[in-house]
């Protein structure tokens, strides 16, 4: 039988949201050659105890959610990235060098409770 989510409608549950980072908004387009921006995404939503097991959660998140149920002083598990991917950036530095660098963990691919 389906477990009803306590006080959380589906759209409020922890999941990945789209977030496009436009370097022009940051004024970084003056020195970043490529990309012009990237889909970084972010995680947001509730992690109710009843759904902790189904929301791509860590074992720790499950235990924390359990403890929260027993003692509300323990904070609830939070919605965090569980899978991130790298991206490359091509930019100019202050010495007029062109730099190509790869950065890990720049794009959120999956979210879960942790």
């Amino acid at each position, binding site marked *: 039988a389906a477990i009803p989510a306590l006080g959380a409608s589906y759209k409020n549950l922890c999941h990945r949201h789209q977030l496009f980072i436009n370097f022009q908004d940051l004024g970084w387009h003056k020195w970043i*050659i490529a990309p012009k921006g990237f889909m970084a995404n972010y995680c947001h939503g509730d992690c109710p105890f009843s759904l902790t097991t189904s929301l791509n959660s860590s074992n720790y998140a499950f235990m924390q959610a359990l403890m929260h149920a027993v003692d509300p002083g323990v904070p609830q598990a939070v919605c965090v990235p569980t899978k991130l991917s790298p991206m490359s950036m091509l930019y*100019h530095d202050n010495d007029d060098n062109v*730099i190509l660098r790869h950065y890990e963990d720049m794009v959120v691919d999956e979210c879960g409770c942790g």
Partner: protein
Amino acid sequence: FQFREYDFLQFLGLDQVPSPQKFQPVPYVLKKIFQDREAAAATGVPQDLCYVKELGVPGNVLRLLPDQGFFLSSKKLSQASPCLQKLLYFNLSAIKEKEQLTMAQLGLDLGPRSYYHLGPELELALILVQEPPEWGQASPKPGKIFSLHSVPSPQGALYFNLLDVAKDWNDNPRKNLGLFLEILVKEDRDSRMDFQLEDTCARLRRSLLASLLVVTFNPEQCSSSSRKRR
């Protein structure tokens, strides 16, 4: 916001928001590596961010350093005198202490390729500058010859492996006095040589572009997570 931006720039390996004065052209190899990495990321193909497979070397940062040297004055040209003399200088200060150099390639672009204007055969000499200029002299004293190269026609790009030299410069910045580039026109072509000479040398001075592509590897940033994937 400024404070947070500074933190993030540090994470990117920058001390401040860059405000470049000159915009160097991005070489094909850097564009290609960038596009390949972007395509791999889009398709979810695991990547080793600490190995540059296109260049066959370990590394996680690629830098194209522009030449900051200067042309040395040339007298009236004749076949015996050099067509072009230039001091090449590359500022390696952007390379951080913990980074290990794994590649340093000098690129000399002699201008666009053409089938119609091949130009005279050239001799190109790269000489390491080992002593600073003497008092009252504008140009440094050249040292030992690093490379002597015959160029059938002055066009296209030439590449030289400068890894050992760049490592030495990086370890001892005082030794980084640059490279002396001398281009001579080879003799015995034909009678039109003198006519072509001024033209060829003037074109070379206008089109010559020198840059140093350096790849570095930072063991702290290439930790277990990337090795696991490899």
